[in-house]
């Protein structure tokens, strides 16, 4: 097969990254040209379920009222990792600091979903659907972004195009474009992991291929295709590189496996995983404690992922979301309740990082949303729209985020 430019763009980037002989500056310039023409980047979406406390994650440490409202859980000025003289990272995010300093990590503060709904489940659904306060949406924004990509650029795609690390496909990825959920790459086989499909697996394949049950036939079809592809690609063979060390946690394992699947050239274009444990109603702690432990796991897993990918990280954009923020004031039990705006992290080789984006609404009592939460100044869809436009080349933003009336002229210039 002739190595066409298109093939190179679609499959080549990661292959190059594996070739140590090519100097990385050369790889970068090739990629720079590639992404300008046909965006071939991979998007990794991380959902912090339970509503992370953005005010203790990216701390507005010059705000007097921040300390007044959070007498026991605030991060002291001398403990934050300063970003720009106004904001500082929670000290448990130490592994994010170099990424920020190198200009790979950007932050959008006071961002999130405009919905005032304070139910985790509704707010997560709204955020994942990409249509705040509209209950009837049945598919997810990321799936529609892939649909929008199809509308403008016909490409060859694999069954691994849209991938969720976890037991089920999340709403974010649900929709017309088929997606796949994997809990563990090592156990992704039927009746043993031999070099060929086992006889029992063959029987199952026939059964599911021929069943009149459409739902299960489609699932079976995807399953056996994916099993075969995964067996051929053997992602387990890709061990963490460049000295990357993942935390031995559920999230760390997910990130390690996403890296393996990306490196195995399976054609992953959009990957999703989630990380739980952010619903800190009580005893969330300050510099140490519950939230600090979550943040350490969170940032070390993402930093290890970045390191592991090495030069191919150039081609990846990672974004974090959480359904809403938490109350500006701490509650009576050393925690925080359901709030509004939050902080979004955007990491990537092409990201214009080292900056906190967004308009800061202030934290004085009269500046709070409903008198209790950080007000929202950037709709999360504005951030995602820019990312999907630049990474996937999705043009039809009305399809991705119906009713949001997004325009590239209002992009923040993150990517």
């Amino acid at each position, binding site marked *: 097969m002739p190595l066409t430019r298109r093939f190179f763009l679609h499959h080549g980037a990661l292959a190059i990254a594996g070739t140590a002989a090519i100097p990385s500056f050369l790889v970068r310039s090739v990629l720079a040209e590639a992404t300008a023409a046909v965006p071939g980047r991979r998007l990794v979406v991380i959902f912090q379920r339970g509503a992370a406390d953005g005010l203790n994650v990216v701390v507005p440490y010059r705000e007097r009222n921040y300390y007044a409202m959070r007498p026991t859980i605030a991060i002291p000025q001398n403990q934050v990792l300063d970003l720009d003289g106004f904001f500082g990272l929670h000290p448990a995010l130490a592994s994010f600091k170099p990424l920020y300093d190198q200009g790979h990590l950007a932050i959008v503060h006071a961002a999130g979903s405009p919905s005032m709904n304070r*139910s985790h489940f*509704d707010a997560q659904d709204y955020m994942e659907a990409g249509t705040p306060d509209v209950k009837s949406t049945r598919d997810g924004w990321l799936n529609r972004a892939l649909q929008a990509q199809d509308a403008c650029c016909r490409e060859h795609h694999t069954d691994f195009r849209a991938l969720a690390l*976890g*037991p*089920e496909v999340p709403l974010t990825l649900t929709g017309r474009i088929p997606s796949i959920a*994997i809990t563990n790459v090592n156990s992704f086989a039927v009746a043993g992991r031999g070099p060929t499909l086992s006889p029992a697996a063959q029987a199952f394949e026939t059964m599911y291929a021929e069943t009149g049950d459409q739902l*299960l036939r489609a699932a079976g079809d995807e399953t056996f295709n994916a099993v075969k592809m995964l067996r051929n690609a053997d992602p387990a063979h890709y061990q963490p590189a460049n000295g990357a060390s993942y935390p031995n946690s559920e999230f760390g394992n997910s990130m390690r496996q996403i890296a393996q699947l990306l490196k195995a050239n399976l054609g992953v274009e959009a990957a999703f995983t989630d990380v739980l444990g952010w619903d800190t109603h009580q005893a969330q702690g300050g510099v140490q404690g519950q939230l600090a432990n979550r943040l350490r796991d969170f940032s070390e897993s993402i930093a290890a992922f970045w390191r592991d990918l090495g030069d191919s990280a150039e081609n990846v954009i990672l974004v974090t979301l959480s359904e809403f923020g938490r109350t500006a004031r701490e509650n*009576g039990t050393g925690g925080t309740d359901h709030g509004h705006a939050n902080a979004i992290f955007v990491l990537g080789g092409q990201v214009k990082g080292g900056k906190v984006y967004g308009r800061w609404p202030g934290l004085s009592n009269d500046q709070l949303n409903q008198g209790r939460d950080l007000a929202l100044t950037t709709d999360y869809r504005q951030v995602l729209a820019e990312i999907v436009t630049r990474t996937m080349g999705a043009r039809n933003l009305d399809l991705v985020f119906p009713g949001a009336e997004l325009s590239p002229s209002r992009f923040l210039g993150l990517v």
Partner: protein
Amino acid sequence: MDLFRPPLPSLLAVLLCLPAPASRAQTSAEASSTLASAPSASRSTQLQGDARILHALNRFTFGPRPGDLEAVRAEGLDNWFNEQLHPQRLDESALDTRLAQLPALQWSVPDLLYRYPSDAVLRMTINGKARIPADPIERAIYENQIYRIRIRQQGGIQGAPGSPQPDATDLNTQVAPAIDPQSIRTILSLPPDQRVTRLASIREPAYDALLKSLKPPQRAALVADMTPEQRETVEALAGPEQVVVQELLAGRLLCDVYSNAQLLEVMTDFWLNHFNIYLHKNEPMPYYLVSYERDAIRPHALGHFEDLLEAVAHTPAMLMYLDNAESVGPHSLAAERFKDNAWRRPNGKHQDPPGINENYGRELMELHTVSVDGGYTQADVIAAAKVLTGWTVDHPQFGGGFLFTPNRHEPGSKKVMGQKIKQSGEREGEALLHMLATRPATAQMLSRELAVRFVSDNPPQSLVDRMAKTYLSTNGDISAVMETLFHSPEFWANSNDGVKVKTPLEYIVSAVRASNADVTNYAPLVNQVRVMGMPLFGCVQPNGYAWTSDAWVNTGDLIDRMNFALMLASNQFPGINVDWSNPTTTNPGAFAQAVPTPAQEEARLEWLLLPQGASATTRAAVLQRFQAFQRQTTPDAAQVRPVAEAESLQWVSPQIVRAREDALLAGLLMGSPDFQRR
């Protein structure tokens, strides 16, 4: 003569004896074409005869066992359902015998926490705030775990996810004395009671080292002849909290598989999901969940919803899970006193005044009763939370019960969803629960949720309305609502037959039931349910798991199901035994003597596992595979083989060959698309 192929006439005779499996996939596929020509069109839209019984068994139980169809046919479907609604008279002696293997499930929460202390209790003994029991065996349970806690503490940051954990077991083996084979033999030769005493005298780290040095058969022998209580003690010496967690989870699966009161178990599972609680919310939670399921959920699972809601609202488990136990009225006596005291200790450590926590107030309305569209506002959430201030737990670390603390209760009258609730302390909460339980929005929400569980992913509104009407006219009698469902034409519609995809729990339990497995070790099942994404008591978020197919049909899940089916059928899970030649799993009268053909053997197992009949495509794929397998493993008398090859074949007894064939057949049937639905 061909031993494997009986003469044609006898084969036909045998096939004619079989209850004709009405192949569901075919029926539904052909339904549209046959409908017009059917003699009675109205009859054909509703399930009839055995199909009706199997539909009921699939929906109101965790799946039919061999023999269930015949039993219900004999008893009459209406009688059977009535019995399921009022299960008090059912004989549960077999279930009770099995439950006796899990003695911890019978104890009160304080007793459990005393006998098998949580790490929180043990840290209190370390700090001198609680006492270590004097009884030498109980003492040993405490001291062993205290040793492990100390080892962990030495390692630094405790339980911090992501930080490198000190490997306590490595430390153990480093300092532990070597266990010589002779002393192991000595211990194993002791009578059970002396063996327990001897084991309790071996303290950590030696105890762990001893257990590790046992070979699997020795490990089995260590507890084989012990009473359940003795076995529990031996396990508690290795980790007291684990005993409670394991029995809690095993108990759920045990009842799901073996209870005759199947509808009660299905409903218990339904309400445990509706009133979801996460096992690891805090340290005493596993202990409280033993009581939560036993004392709050199961007794009311088929009773009145208001009683259930009241019972749940009074459980320490729910009050802690949704943080109400911590909630304090901002103008309560406790809050005022706190402010006063703060003045008196100007140099004291700064503490924020305790305040309200909205979590339970919100989920009580959103998830437990009126649902998110039930017409409440953020102000109602706060008002409900104020109503419930003071509802807390008495000494949770020691397993105390519900406690209303007037000091924490927010004074004044409140208004929730337009209804005024007069200041009356604890009774305000009762008024709130009564108001929520009797709302039409609650009737709609619960009826829909039940219809989604029992009928289809998108149940007809007519059915939901009828159920909601019954709910409102019977003061929320759950049995009456279920009766309405049972007598509704929508439930029996042909189009609803087999449309529900089994959740992982339903899939696993139905496979275990269909294969008549004898389970003595539940750990593999607990693990499989978790792997498939539905860990028991493992849903972190209060909305519980979804009942709809979209949540459970995906690639990873399908792989896990196929693998589970093959492993279960071939006896690869330790402590779970299936016997495909067992006479009780055999169609009575058929194939008593004859060596069956593949088609006969497939038909026998299909009759056991898919009594409603497999689809033609599944049957063909199973048979094709089976015949290929037979060609590989059995020397075919009709086929002339080169001598050398025949000699090289290892001789395997026909029984073993047949058992392997059956395991493959059964595994394929249980992993088939047909078995994924109910």
